[in-house]
């Protein structure tokens, strides 16, 4: 490689590496702000700002969904199987909402430690399966790794 090209190559490398490290520093400084939601452990540890509008994300705890008879109010617990927080939401839930489903709720903590949500989004996971397979797996009592807790209620 002739010296002129070498010089330009070094310049290009310098540009790319320099710019990447700037972006890496900025991103690591902003790390907390880029996270879309706080998980229940973080909220329980007081890492989430109090009284501010935040998003909370986690799994809907099995057997925790309580629906109000006369309104659209739903109360359920969001958990990361480490800590869990109660969430209250009035409105229409997305189709994928069910026990064991990952969700992200937007709202704020009230004085009683209940998360008052005004928006609930379902978080889909990366697993895809035909319905016959899940039926068969359920009958056999076996679901793929890490899903057994989730799918038993969800499949029906």
């Amino acid at each position, binding site marked *: 490689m002739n010296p002129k090209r070498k010089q330009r190559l070094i310049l290009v490398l310098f540009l790319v590496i320099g710019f990447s490290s700037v972006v890496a520093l900025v*991103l690591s400084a902003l790390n907390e702000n880029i996270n*879309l939601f706080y998980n229940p452990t973080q909220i329980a540890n007081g890492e989430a700002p109090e009284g501010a509008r935040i998003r909370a994300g986690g799994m809907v705890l099995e057997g925790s969904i309580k629906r109000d008879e006369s309104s659209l109010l739903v109360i359920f617990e969001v958990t990361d199987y480490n800590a869990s927080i109660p969430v209250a939401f009035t409105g229409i839930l*997305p*189709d994928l909402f069910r026990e064991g489903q990952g969700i992200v709720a937007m709202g704020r903590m009230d004085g009683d430690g209940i998360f008052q949500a005004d928006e609930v989004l379902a978080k889909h996971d990366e697993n895809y*399966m035909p319905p016959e397979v899940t039926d068969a797996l359920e009958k056999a009592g076996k679901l793929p790794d890490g899903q057994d807790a989730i799918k038993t209620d969800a499949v029906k």
Partner: protein
Amino acid sequence: MWTFFHKLGSPKWFYEISGKWLPWLAVLSAILLVAGSVWALAFAPADYQQGNSFRIIYIHVPAAFLAQSCFIMMAISGAIGLIWKMKIADVFVKAAAPIGASFTFLALLTGAIWGKPTWGTWWIWDARLTSMLILLFLYFGVMALQSAIEDATTAAKASAILALVGMVNIPIIKYSVEWWNTLHQPATFTLTEKPAMPAEMWVPLLVMVIGYYCFFTTVLFLRARNEILERERRTNWVKKLVSKEAA
């Protein structure tokens, strides 16, 4: 190996060789895309949770792959153009930008259409979606530079630098779902692990992905050939080619 590399730098040589490949590439991409679509829409099983709406994956995932691959290709071409001053590399940067932008837009659009019934929202400012939107703006930036700067060499230099700087966004898109909490799910496909999807679902997807890559190459070659003819219009070989076509 180096002779091949230097030959590749010759617009005339590229024009000739790509002319031979084009019909094959076009036919191959047509076959793969038609076969993949029919297989994906009619024969692949529905998902146990999302039902039929998951089928949008067959457009969304290949489009998102292409959007990123195209940018990587652009950045590499840009670097080659900057360092080796190869004319053809500049042509590729210019030809690829609008194609990449289209794929990025397609990925964002199909994602939004899928997001509404699945997540409950069209759009959310999570790390994956936002970084993908930035990618779209980077493509727009390259396109804007190309049309704003009259002189081809200066335009090529400016867009190559933008492409190289924008490269930093690619790993951010890829790892956004692992580094931060996002609404977007992590990758179903990785090179190291088996897909989180049965074969009857991912085989048509693979066909679609290969089809998209062939289609991308076809369109890229068409645009690059056009650009070469325009840039080289004063050279002998183009004049000869044009007069032969006209006769």
